[in-house]
């Protein structure tokens, strides 16, 4: 899950442009400065790499790790050298 502190977002779209799997988009939601803020796309391949969180120059994004359900097999979204790295 991605949490955006909407009123701190300036709308630079760095998170949107730099996400390795294009999981984010600029939404219709406006903050109090009239900036349209980012959200995860309805269908997305976010693998919670936390790049957007670290790059955001305005401390506005938190990536919240989703715990894998007991017994659930999660599809690996980033494979490096045959090992799941997501």
């Amino acid at each position, binding site marked *: 899950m991605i*949490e955006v*502190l909407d*009123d*701190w977002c*300036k*709308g*630079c*779209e*760095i998170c949107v*442009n*730099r996400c390795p799997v294009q999981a984010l988009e600029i939404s219709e939601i406006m903050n109090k400065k009239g900036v349209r803020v980012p959200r995860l796309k309805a269908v997305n391949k976010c693998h919670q790499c*936390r*790049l957007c*969180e*670290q*790059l*955001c*120059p*305005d*401390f*506005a*994004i*938190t*990536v*919240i*790790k989703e715990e894998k359900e007991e017994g659930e097999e999660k599809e690996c979204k980033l494979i490096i050298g045959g090992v799941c790295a997501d």
Partner: protein
Amino acid sequence: MSEMINQTEMREKYLRKGMLPSIFCNGCGHGSSLDYTFRAIEELGLDLDNMVFASGIGCSSRIPGYINADGLHTTHGRSLAFATGVKAANPELDVVVFSGDGDATGIGGNHFIHAARRNIDITVIILNNFIYGMTGGQVAPTSPKGTIATTAPYGNLEGAFDISELAKSLGAAYVARWPVFYPSQPIKSIKDAIQTKGFSLVELMSPCPTAYGRRNKLGNIKKLWDWYEDNSILAEEYDKIMNYGTDEEKAETINKIKIGVFQHTEKVGFFEAYEEQIANLMANDDKKWGGSK
């Protein structure tokens, strides 16, 4: 590695939240550098109460104002003199200086040279955006040749300072340069710089869309951030191409900015050496002035 701190916790622990959102323009890279600094401090497990952040004047120099720790927002170019004083008064403190390319190499150039040469045990993080951002875009000593600036409307004719090269030649203990668009290298370098004894420099190339990008027709925020990616190259890669590459590869590479860790040694800092000298003199009191009393 332990789980990285999340942004919500980080805001609570490290930011003076009342000061945010920052004064930085939309798409300015300076904020990302502060984010990386917090993550480095967190990973090192340092206590903010044992740290002091100093800065001069400029957009980059506003950074200590956002940190929930003691800070000194000093005069333009003079932060290193203040930081030296802090370190002299209490060598136990971890002192981190935030400076801009103008602040550190223009008006503060001599402070920078001599703090490095003296090997004052502090960490300096210079946010290099190739321009005087705060005052609207005058040429800085770091502006590449041809830069369009308010003081160089037809293009800058001067050669640019390479801050990292300069620090390296002055014998700084740690020197690294990274663009801000990859978090992990800057975070690692800030950690190493803080831990390294002696004068440590981390130069972060920070996009300034307002005073540099726009005037130099580097496009919107995305294009400007991409420009840094397309125009920087790992130092090892650069040297390999310049030594063994084809003419075509060389021509493509020669004007790119080298990034990486350029120097990493351990050097006893000035104040530690000073303490040592005093201890030696006390132990050999009769030989204090090179002879007997």
